[in-house]
């Protein structure tokens, strides 16, 4: 929450607790870059933060149109924060279309910075404005700053030796420079980034550096902002931090698991939004012994993954919902041959192709039930971008220990969003022991570990362990094909029991709030963590009897969950779907869970959850 952002009329530095800024412009305007630079700088400044990129499905929708608008929201604070914020305090709009799409979210009296050079008639036309909103008074309730960004950038870059078209591309750095000044942030991190990133193009590097500096100086010189702000560092737990997106963290988690287990990492994948970045990321780490295989489709991707697992790799496959649909038959095979692999679903809006660049968490059912017959698989879900690291690591550990495919669910919001992430100590990571079977004496491919029920991992190349696996039902112990009725029932139950026993790996849920019970328990999973947590904290601070439980393990669920649910008078499950977790809780625990369902391709705001809490346990009227 911001303490006070009102302009006081004299130039001064005001201390704020939390700020929400949204950059918006054409998809060609470099908005994602601008946003991530501001993020990096805020991270280095020690703020807690959360981000929400939002870009169109088209590569380049026609310039200046509403569908072409790209946005990036960042919330940074001197306190713990959990979401990129509900309503932005500041909106930077590079053109009329960006203004039109984003203005409804700007909070009253918010700061609105626009590139007034982009408000010519044809620009207004494309955005569907009949009158110029900069002139018709419709923006009166905001603090409007009309800045001739294009013109100023051109002036600043005179003589650099770039064509006008290219010069105009630098105007995002000009805007960024202004924002750095406004928030008293040194532009050093970004300068370093520009130098590094354009090291092969000195002219562009110079242009961008100049534009950045010009924006900064312009703000200082013109005193356009009568006030600047300072958001002090957040009291983060001591340690080393970096800013990571969910997809990055996921990739790092698997590399860490590979290193700790001593197994080479194999990724079989086929590009799909918003999962492709994991492939891009991992393909850079060949010197970690990572094999990335871009297959001809999702089926081949998981096929190769299963093959690599059979051959003794830590094998993963990464995709989004439609890709998981294609992989379902092979996942069934993996449950039958009981090989370790991790299937990551970076969920997006559906059904079908749906809203490919938007977020949703509607593939829980698919992960749990989306296969023919009884093919149970553990399901884990990350709560925040940084948590993707831990979830990936944990999924790999469970897969190997229990010899099973494991599902990891994240979503577009986690994948592209970022937060400061406290680096784990490599030595603190749990061990991942791997015991390949090597002894031929008494070897039986489906002989199970009495504790975990895992079968042995006997990889090709091991003398004396020649054996056959496959998708037909196996005889208990020998693994030979068996059509025996009772053996089939036994095997179905053994496979189920093996997954059920993974509850041993699942920590009991911890209740944030009143562990002993109360009026309302809000249960969430996945990326809703931040919004739910923020809302519950707020409502608790207002005295409501409301608690929060967040599930990172969807199958098996924590052993104490049934008990915990029973202690609350009401249970609310906010989800970005039509009530999937809610249904599962009802079915498993016969608890009358109610859903709060948002299916808009964008995350919950804290306010939305807070409002429902109010409705359920009485709020301010």
């Amino acid at each position, binding site marked *: 929450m911001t303490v006070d952002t009102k302009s006081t009329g004299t130039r001064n530095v005001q201390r704020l607790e939390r700020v929400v800024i949204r950059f918006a412009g054409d998809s060609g305007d470099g908005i994602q870059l601008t946003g991530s630079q501001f993020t990096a700088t805020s991270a280095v400044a020690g703020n807690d933060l959360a981000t929400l990129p939002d870009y169109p499905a088209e590569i380049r929708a026609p310039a200046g149109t509403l569908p072409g608008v790209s946005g990036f929201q960042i919330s940074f604070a001197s306190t713990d924060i959990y979401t990129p914020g509900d309503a932005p305090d500041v909106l930077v709009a590079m053109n009329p279309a960006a203004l039109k799409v984003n203005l409804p979210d700007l909070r009253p009296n918010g700061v609105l910075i626009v590139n007034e050079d982009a408000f010519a008639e044809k620009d207004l036309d494309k955005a569907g404005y009949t009158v110029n909103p900069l002139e018709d008074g419709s923006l009166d309730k905001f603090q409007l700053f009309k800045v001739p960004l294009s013109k100023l950038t051109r002036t600043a870059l005179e003589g650099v030796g770039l064509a006008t078209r290219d010069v105009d591309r630098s105007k995002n750095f000009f805007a960024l420079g202004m924002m750095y000044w406004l928030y008293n942030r040194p532009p050093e991190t970004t300068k370093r980034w520009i130098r590094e990133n354009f090291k092969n193009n000195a002219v562009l590097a110079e242009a961008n550096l100049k534009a950045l500096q010009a924006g900064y100086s312009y703000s200082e010189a013109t005193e356009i902002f009568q006030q600047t702000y300072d958001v002090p560092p957040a009291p983060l737990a001591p340690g080393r931090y970096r800013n990571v997106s969910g997809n990055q963290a996921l990739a790092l988690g698997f590399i860490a698991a590979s290193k700790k287990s001593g197994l080479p990492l194999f990724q079989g994948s086929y590009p799909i939004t918003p999962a492709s970045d994991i492939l891009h990321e991992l393909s850079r780490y060949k010197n970690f012994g990572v094999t990335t295989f871009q297959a*001809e489709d999702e089926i081949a991707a998981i096929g190769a993954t299963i093959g*690599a697992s059979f051959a003794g790799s830590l094998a993963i496959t990464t995709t989004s919902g439609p890709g998981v649909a294609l992989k379902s038959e092979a996942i069934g095979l993996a449950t039958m041959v009981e090989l370790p692999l991790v299937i990551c679903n970076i969920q997006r809006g559906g059904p079908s192709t749906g809203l490919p660049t938007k977020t949703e968490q509607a593939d829980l059912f698919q992960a749990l039930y989306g296969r023919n017959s009884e093919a149970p698989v553990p399901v884990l879900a990350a709560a925040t971008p940084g948590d993707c690291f831990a979830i990936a690591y944990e999924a790999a550990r469970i897969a190997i220990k229990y010899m099973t495919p494991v599902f990891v669910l994240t979503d577009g919001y986690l994948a592209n969003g970022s937060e400061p992430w406290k680096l784990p100590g490599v030595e603190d990571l749990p061990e991942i022991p791997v015991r390949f079977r090597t002894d031929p004496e008494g070897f039986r491919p489906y002989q199970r570990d009495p504790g975990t029920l895992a079968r042995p991992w006997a990889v*090709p190349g091991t003398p004396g*362990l020649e054996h056959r696996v496959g998708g037909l039902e196996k005889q208990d112990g020998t693994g030979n094909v068996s059509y025996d009725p009772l053996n089939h029932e036994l095997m179905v139950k053994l496979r189920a029991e093996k997954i059920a026993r993974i509850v041993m790996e699942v920590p009991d849920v911890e209740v944030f709030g009143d562990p002993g019970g109360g009026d309302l328990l809000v249960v969430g999973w996945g990326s809703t963590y931040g919004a739910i947590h923020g809302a519950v904290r707020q409502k608790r601070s207002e005295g409501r009897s409301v608690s929060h439980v967040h599930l990172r393990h969807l199958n098996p669920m924590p052993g104490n969950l049934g008990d915990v649910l029973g202690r609350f008078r009401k249970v609310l499950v906010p989800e970005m779907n039509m009530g999937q977790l809610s249904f599962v809780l009802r079915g498993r625990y016969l608890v009358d869970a109610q859903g709060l369902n948002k299916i808009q391709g964008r995350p919950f705001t804290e306010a939305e959850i807070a409002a429902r809490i109010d409705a359920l346990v009485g709020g301010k009227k």
Partner: protein
Amino acid sequence: MNPAVTNPGGVPALTKKDFATDQEVRWCPGCGDYAILNAVQQVFPELGIPKEKFVIVSGIGCSSRFPYYMNTFGFHSIHGRAPAIASGVKLARPDLSVWVATGDGDALAIGGNHIIHMLRRNMDVKVLMFNNRIYGLTKGQYSPTSEQFKKTKSTPFGSLDRPFNPIALALGAEATFVARAIDIYANHLKEVIRAAARHKGSAFIEIYQNCNIFNDHAFDAVREKDTRDENAVTLEHGKPLVFGKNRDKGLRLNGLDFEVVDLSSAGGSAGDLFVHDETAENAGAAFLLAHLGDRPGAPTPIGVFRRVERPAFDEMAARQIREVTEKLGPGELETLLNSGDVWEVGP
């Protein structure tokens, strides 16, 4: 690395028996699959590869039960996906000798895409495709290699699909090794399998296989003793194309068409016969030969159509990892985690 090459000696001598399993072989009596199993069990011990280094992956179909009868590592997977699984095995462990056993339905119906992609990549996996021109396991529907207008369970009034020519398809997919053999001609089949094993990269072998239950006699012309010499021509590297019971016919190129030359008649001379070159850079001749059997009067070629050297995918993938590691140094987890803009928060 090709295990056949890197493990030339030091391996205890293996015999056919080493490759038999304790599982009862469950094909119909008289099925051509038995002959293929026999041939493979005879060739494998010769290859100088330790038994545990063989992996045989299959899909689903009668043919795909093959791995159960081979005492190697085996994977009887799902319909059509064997090439993908085999690719994963080979990428993870380039030192293994990886084989795919598949049928015309498994490989060319549901699995068509994986096959052609594996071939273009030149993944070092050998494909034995049992072509019986029918779906055996599902009891007799026509397959992508069945002749047009075939009456089957699913086409009581005749099928309408034009068939694939598997050799042409493999060549169209840029395969580096393409061959054809016949189930019961053991010596030739074994020769072809050996050549595939020696080849570094993908090898695709179409094996004409008689399904005596649902498509008996499909290959009689080239499979029966009394007709085969007239109807099949064996491709031999560096040799002119000659066939016939009395080796009295030859094949000559006329423009881009092959024509049969009667060597016994006055006009016929062995001198202008086409000399087969497996290793020709240009796949044109192989492509022409692939379609030879379509034409009335012309024989069906068996043997190796094409065999050219290209770097194998798995080898390149392993090399890329080595090279990047040499260049950037072995990855350190600690360093990786600490990369990018890292900052310290004090206690």
